[in-house]
């Protein structure tokens, strides 16, 4: 449309004065999109972390705390669940498989998860995808460790490398020299898992017996002074685990999950919490929902401020353009055309700002995705804008049009009043 072309050329000729206004639109659109993208990515990542599991059972605790700790390795619970309890669960006739998980140690900021072969056999993520090895396998001796994809990538490990675990403190996300280390019992990397985009990528996996073994000569979080058990001595000891953090349970019949949940929640013996993962995640989103709404409101406000700035910049420049508007009226433009011209200009500037903002978010997402995966186990969406982002962009452009109404109206009145002879 000729009017749009004229508007673009006009805006381009004043790009110096408008550049700051456009920059503020770029930043505000970037903020808006970032909030949406982080929310979307976090929800998808969390939801994809565990698939096909019916229950996560652990010591009596808030369901969210249990799930966050067991699956997302976030937080430290006060207590654990007995190994006997885990075996009783596994023996229940309604249970098809269980994956016991024990957390506590770390390696250079990444959590160490002690489990058994059931993990590699039954764990699913995303759309019921099983775990796969990109390097090596789960075969090896007692002190073998399987690495998540991001751990191996970030620390540069391959099959055959050796590493030492640290006691506690994976939550800090960084290597803390104050942590006590299990240097006397180094682990050998037996395999590296293929990337999953879930917290699996940022964890290390050892056997439950190995976890028991490295803590034999420890008590209360520190090595017992004067006691040192070499690897050769371990054969004399019972390496059955005593405690686990949680058990992931798959039932033979999914429909039985409600009564099995009730059964484990209210059973005699140690107090347990049985959590349906999808239900607990919804509770998580309910909790974060309020904060998300606040963030949305702030981002919308920032955009409003930026668009006001744009309107103000265009309004301020109208005085110098009265000659230009008079010329247009002389060649036959109606005052309505003048109004539409300003609207086109506002739309073009908003579209430019929004496109640049989108580009900024894409680049930031690509740049930050590895860090987000390593630190939080969240796979940031780096593809094209999601289904929720396009409507946001459309709303931004509509808002830009609305903000252009005031300058357009002013220009309309000016061109009406000035006619052929503006008072410049």
């Amino acid at each position, binding site marked *: 449309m000729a009017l749009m072309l004229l508007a673009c050329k006009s805006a381009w000729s004043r790009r110096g004065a408008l550049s700051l206004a456009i920059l503020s639109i770029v930043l505000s659109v970037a903020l808006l999109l970032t909030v949406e993208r982080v929310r979307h990515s976090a*929800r*998808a990542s*969390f*939801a*994809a972390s565990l*698939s*096909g599991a*019916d229950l996560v059972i652990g010591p009596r605790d808030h369901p969210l705390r249990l799930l966050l700790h067991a699956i997302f390795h976030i937080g430290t619970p006060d207590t654990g669940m007995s190994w006997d309890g885990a075996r009783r669960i596994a023996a229940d006739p309604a249970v*098809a498989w269980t994956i016991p998980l024990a957390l506590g140690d770390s390696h250079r900021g990444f959590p160490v998860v002690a489990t058994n072969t059931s993990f590699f056999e039954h764990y699913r993520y*995303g*759309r019921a995808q099983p775990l796969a090895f990109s390097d090596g396998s789960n075969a090896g001796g007692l002190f073998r460790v399987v690495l998540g994809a991001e751990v191996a990538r970030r620390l540069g490990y391959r099959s055959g490398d050796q590493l030492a675990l640290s006691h506690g403190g994976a939550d800090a996300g960084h290597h803390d020299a104050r942590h006590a280390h299990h240097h006397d019992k180094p682990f050998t990397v037996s395999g590296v898992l293929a990337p999953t985009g879930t917290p699996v990528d940022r964890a290390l996996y050892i056997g439950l017996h190995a976890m028991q073994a490295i803590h034999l000569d420890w008590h209360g979080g520190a090595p017992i002074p004067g006691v040192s058990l070499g690897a050769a001595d371990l054969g004399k000891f019972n390496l059955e685990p005593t405690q686990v953090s949680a058990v992931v349970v798959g039932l*033979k*019949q*999914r*429909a*039985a*999950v*409600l*009564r099995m*949940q*009730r059964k484990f929640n*209210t059973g005699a013996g140690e107090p347990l919490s049985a959590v*349906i993962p*999808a*239900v607990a*995640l*919804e509770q998580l989103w309910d909790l974060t929902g309020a904060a998300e709404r606040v963030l949305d409101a702030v981002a919308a406000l920032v955009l409003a401020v930026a668009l006001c700035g744009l309107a103000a910049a265009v309004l301020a420049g109208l005085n110098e353009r009265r000659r230009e508007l008079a010329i247009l009226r002389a060649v036959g433009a109606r005052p309505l055309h003048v109004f539409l011209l300003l609207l086109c200009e506002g739309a073009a500037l908003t579209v430019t700002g929004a496109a640049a903002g989108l580009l900024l978010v894409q680049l930031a997402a690509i740049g930050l995705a590895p860090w987000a995966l390593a630190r939080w186990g969240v796979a940031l969406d780096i593809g094209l804008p999601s289904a929720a982002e396009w409507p946001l962009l459309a709303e931004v452009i509509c808002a830009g049009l609305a903000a252009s109404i005031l300058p357009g109206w002013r220009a309309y009145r000016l061109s009406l009043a000035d006619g052929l002879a503006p008072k410049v």
Partner: protein
Amino acid sequence: MMDPSRRRMLVAAAIALAGCSRERPGADLHPVQSQAATASPAAAPAPAAPVQEAEWYALQPRDWEPARTFNEDVASLSDNDPRAVEALARLQQAWANAPVEPGMDGARIRIGGYIIPLDTDYGAVSELLLVPYFGACIHAPPPPANQVIHVFLPEPRRDLRMMDPVHVSGTLRLARDRSPDNVAGLIETVGYEMAAEAVVPYTPDTAN
């Protein structure tokens, strides 16, 4: 003093049983205007049966009376009487083994209930349980096995949330025990499942 949750469960069970074991006059299924199915051309060679509105008690066999597990008058028991505890355990056992109504196998029905999400596709619900009443896994006891439908959605849905009231349409099937250690030949039916054709959020307009 009996654990409050157990007392609630007994009371709720008594009420539910009172409703279940009464003989219902007339048909359990009443026809509703046929809904156009979103069936793909490969689904059914013959014209699909019309969708019928179903009530939850239709999923129970008419002769199922768990009240028989209560051999004594519950109201006469004191709170911590071991017989009450036993009765509760027997009740829970009965509900766990609640039999299905074989006549419902293959019935194309539309039934209303509440959602419990089971599995998601990156956050969009793909499998859910449909239960007859609100709060079935929060503060109320779980329903018996013949009052739960394991629903598979045709497409993952982002708009469905926990405890949303919905109407689900589809063909009801008896679920078979699929565990690996089920001896071949011993096919035990353990509940209902359905591949949903449509899941419609409940509003007063969609009620009929």
